[in-house]
């Protein structure tokens, strides 16, 4: 009974943290980006075009030694501006992931 209560409590906590991050970071950044740039998902028909095929970036074998870590990755794909958003998301996401794995760590949440 107590365990079940903790499970529910923990789930609610993680959901509310995720909701705060979503409303605090994802939604505003997304809404602003929606105003200033083209839709990355191209959610509209373009009747004047004869084709939607796009030229494809060639497959580069990064090789076993090249670590496609965040910095190189963002740089190569012209997506450096995405990194701060991703950093915030990941740190909170990780915290949620960690707490979902342990009942007691859930008590850390009220601290922030």
């Amino acid at each position, binding site marked *: 009974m107590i365990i079940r209560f903790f499970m529910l409590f923990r789930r609610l906590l*993680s959901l509310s943290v*995720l909701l705060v991050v979503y409303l605090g970071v994802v939604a505003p950044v997304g809404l602003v980006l929606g105003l200033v740039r083209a839709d990355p998902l191209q959610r509209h028909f373009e009747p004047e075009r004869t084709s939607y095929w796009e030229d494809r970036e060639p497959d580069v074998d990064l090789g076993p030694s090249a670590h496609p870590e965040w910095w190189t990755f963002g740089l190569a794909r012209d997506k450096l501006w995405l990194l701060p958003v991703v950093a915030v998301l990941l740190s909170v996401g990780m915290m949620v992931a960690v707490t979902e794995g342990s009942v007691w760590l859930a008590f850390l949440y009220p601290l922030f």
Partner: protein
Amino acid sequence: MKILGISAYYHDSAAALIDDGVLVAAAQEERFSRVKHDARFPASAIGACLERAGVTSVDRVVYYERPLLKFERLVETWLATAPYGFRHFAAAMPVWSRERVFLRRTLQRELAALGLACELSFCSHHHSHAASAFYPSPFERAVVLTIDGVGEWETATLGVGQGTELTLDRSLRFPHSLGLLYSAFTQYCGFRVNNGEYKLMGLAAHGEPVFAELIRDHLVDLKADGSFRLCLDHFGFLTGKAMVSPSFCELFGGPAREPESEITQRHCDLAASIQQVTELVVARMAAEGVRRYGCRDLCLAGGVALNAVANGKLVAQGVVDRLWVQPAAGDAGGALGAALTVSRSRISMGGGDWGPRQSTEVDLEGVVQALLAGEVVGLFQGAMEFGPRALGFRSILADPRDPEMQERVNRAVKKREGFRPFAPAVLEEHAAQWFELSGTSPHMTTVGRVLKPLPAVTHVDGTARVQTVSERDNPVFYALLTRWHAASGCPVLLNTSFNVRGQPIVATPEHAEACFRSTGIDVLAIHGRVLRL
């Protein structure tokens, strides 16, 4: 050099091992874990590959996808759909932050637990599919087309392969996906996404494509070269809700069908309609490849390439001259493709039996006598198949001439929906007299018209998904079919996978015996013996 390819963490995880440019082993995790479409790290499958190859280490591991690129797509999707995508965000974010974003570390940890410490690299999802389609094909030069739900950003790619070179230079991008469109209809018709697509394809033959115009007018903007965009207002997958949106249900006149509820003519018509649109898109994409690269041979892979009906029409309608489809066209085949992107070697898939080896002894006479008596036979011999089809190594066999047989096999073992047809296996040299096929179909990847009466394996539209059996690829099954032919005058057997509904195909003799005892299979042929209950 030993190269291990891995696919995992989405659906159908698998492993494939290439040694000095030659395929030596490949297996799917679900066969060992007994969880259908198991997506966990394929530890057992890797173990089975190493054991079959007789090695304990590999030189390089290649993962079939670029996880960071995929995560970028997720973040972009969340940003683009804000503030409506919380459900999707809340479901994906914890998993991705825990293990997927740092997949290199996760994979290295899992590999280390198996004693494999080696270099690890990543290749793109569609390049894996393309490599799995081109390198095993019999063509020196061929157009390569991959179509699936989504891999990283891409949903379809087009390119050309020559010798050991493979270049993909055109693509369609998420969320405009033929695979997701087909899956949306799968879910709308009450079947499970990534599992029930076969059922929808089987259902299509029972309906008329009365909704095809509606789909083309409202759901897709299809160009002459096969490229298209989806009207996202009618779909829910971007925000993590159901595949289809309320406006989709409104458009097609009603709510989604409840799973396991009654199937009406309307559902058959919906299936026939999406099937027709799918065939049209695939044919136009293939034609664009033929035009662009000036080549009339085609290699296909990606989940949509498992649509054997669409494949059959490509050749029948003269879009291409020859077609080769990767038998494990779905994500399992990505493991093989990943290894091939590094080895870049031309290989042969043979009979598709790349899993753990077992005895090839079969009491042929006993099996033929049982089949003549109208019994349902479970056949277990040789190495396990790689890919979703049973090809005569882990198969249930029966007499295809008996009109009652489809219902008998269904009732006794498969317990599946009556509208789904069973497939025939035919001696390669007799295939032309019994089926209208262009070329051979050793891995059951294409559909052809049935020319002689075979009621148990003929679908309502007069076609069947044929497997042609050659002595080179599967000598034991070939010998069995030859003896059956001599005894019955018919070179065809009903061949369906050795499993119960909802479970993966059997892998070990123990699985086979358990399946035999718990179902209505009359006879089990295993280890040179014929067992009866």
